[in-house]
């Protein structure tokens, strides 16, 4: 008799294979929207199975379902990325692509059932490099005075849970409770790729860094030039450069 995880993996693979032929930019958007619906149903199945494993106190199984959840989320985000590009919404597309990358990485951290995602993640990174100019990223520095463990709520470091490891269907995180901002820097390789310049000002006109369209002042937050050295057309490049 097959282990429940193996049966679920087969089912997961079937659904993924069914939708993945639409995970290409040129596919019709109605098929991509239908794929999101199917993946959200799959995601709900993952969560239900995970809850059952948690109720049975089966940690390894719960962590495996957590990995499936993250994989399904990554694919949903990938489809939303294509749809946002088609809707001429590159800022939203960027966010979905970055979410797909981080969900895939979280899946790999969650359980060995997702240990094969290197190639998939490389592909997401390739899309990022090919489709977007190199963003200007920001990184903030904080002095952390109090933080707690997301698993048990005790001061982080005083319990036995390690940040980034899975525990009974949850990834451990360090929740910062009290911190002081020290500085904000421009970096090429940030921890959070959502933290980037959105607009720049050119001859008194504020423009979106991706579309270069003028942005009404009320929509634009104060932001430094996206291309401080005058690289207004940067067609390629990598956040990892």
């Amino acid at each position, binding site marked *: 008799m097959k282990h429940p995880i193996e049966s679920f993996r087969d089912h997961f693979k079937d659904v993924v294979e069914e939708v*993945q032929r639409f995970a290409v930019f040129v596919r019709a958007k109605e098929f991509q929207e239908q794929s999101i619906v199917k993946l959200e149903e799959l995601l709900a199945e993952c969560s239900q199975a995970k809850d059952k494993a948690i109720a049975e106190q089966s940690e390894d199984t719960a962590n495996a379902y957590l990995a499936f959840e993250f994989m399904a989320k990554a694919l949903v985000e990938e489809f939303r990325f294509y749809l946002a590009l088609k809707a001429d919404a590159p800022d939203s597309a960027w966010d979905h692509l970055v979410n797909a990358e981080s969900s895939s990485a979280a899946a*790999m*951290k969650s359980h060995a059932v997702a240990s094969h995602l290197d190639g998939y*993640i490389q*592909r997401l990174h390739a899309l990022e490099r090919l489709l977007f100019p190199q963003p200007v990223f920001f*990184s903030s520095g904080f*002095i*952390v005075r109090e933080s707690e463990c997301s698993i048990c709520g005790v001061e982080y*470091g005083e319990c036995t849970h390690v940040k980034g490891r899975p525990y009974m269907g949850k990834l451990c995180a360090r929740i910062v409770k009290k911190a002081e901002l020290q500085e904000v820097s421009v970096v090429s390789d940030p921890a959070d790729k959502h933290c980037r310049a959105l607009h720049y000002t050119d001859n008194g006109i504020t423009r979106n860094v991706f579309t270069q369209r003028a942005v009404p002042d009320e929509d634009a937050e104060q932001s430094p030039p996206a291309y401080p050295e005058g690289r207004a057309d940067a067609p390629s490049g990598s956040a990892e450069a």
Partner: protein
Amino acid sequence: MSLACMGLRPRKLRATGQRRIRQEEIAMTFTITDYCDVQARAEDLNLNRPEGLALLPRNFDTAAMRDELLHESAVQTVRLLFRENEIPERRVEPEGCKIPCIQENEFALILPTLFVGSLLLSQNPHLLSLALNVIANYATDFFKGLPGRNKVVLDVVVEDKNKKLSKKIHYDGGIDGLKEITEIAGKVFTDETSH
């Protein structure tokens, strides 16, 4: 390409005579510099004297007073891992004293400064290897799912047998280079010119 596609494996490291190694575009560098008198400094800052293995704040050698000290944000995780692996660590913070951490969100794993006492290096060198191995395993997990990113920064302070002199080995590079630190630490006072 599907979720089931196979990933690329990192290339094997190749060392050169100049100790510059490359792994997926990350250069490995070891820099050795003189460090302060650790015992005297601990006393000046009203800290416990470090011995064996200890984790030093990043500005241990420059802070004017104890309130200015800052640990790297990975310090609690490294402590957890040491506890998990039964690696004894002498805390420099006296009971009730808490040193805040600095968290910088650029993508490198900046590890806390590892102090290695003179006796430990002569009598129990495998403990340093074990500690570095634990750190390397953590770094591997940390960078899981983040292709092309595996930059680790670690300072190791090694004390001489008279506990008066100390040297800092600054490591900046990929995960695999961490294992070389044990050998370099063992030679730092006898073979300074070789690195």
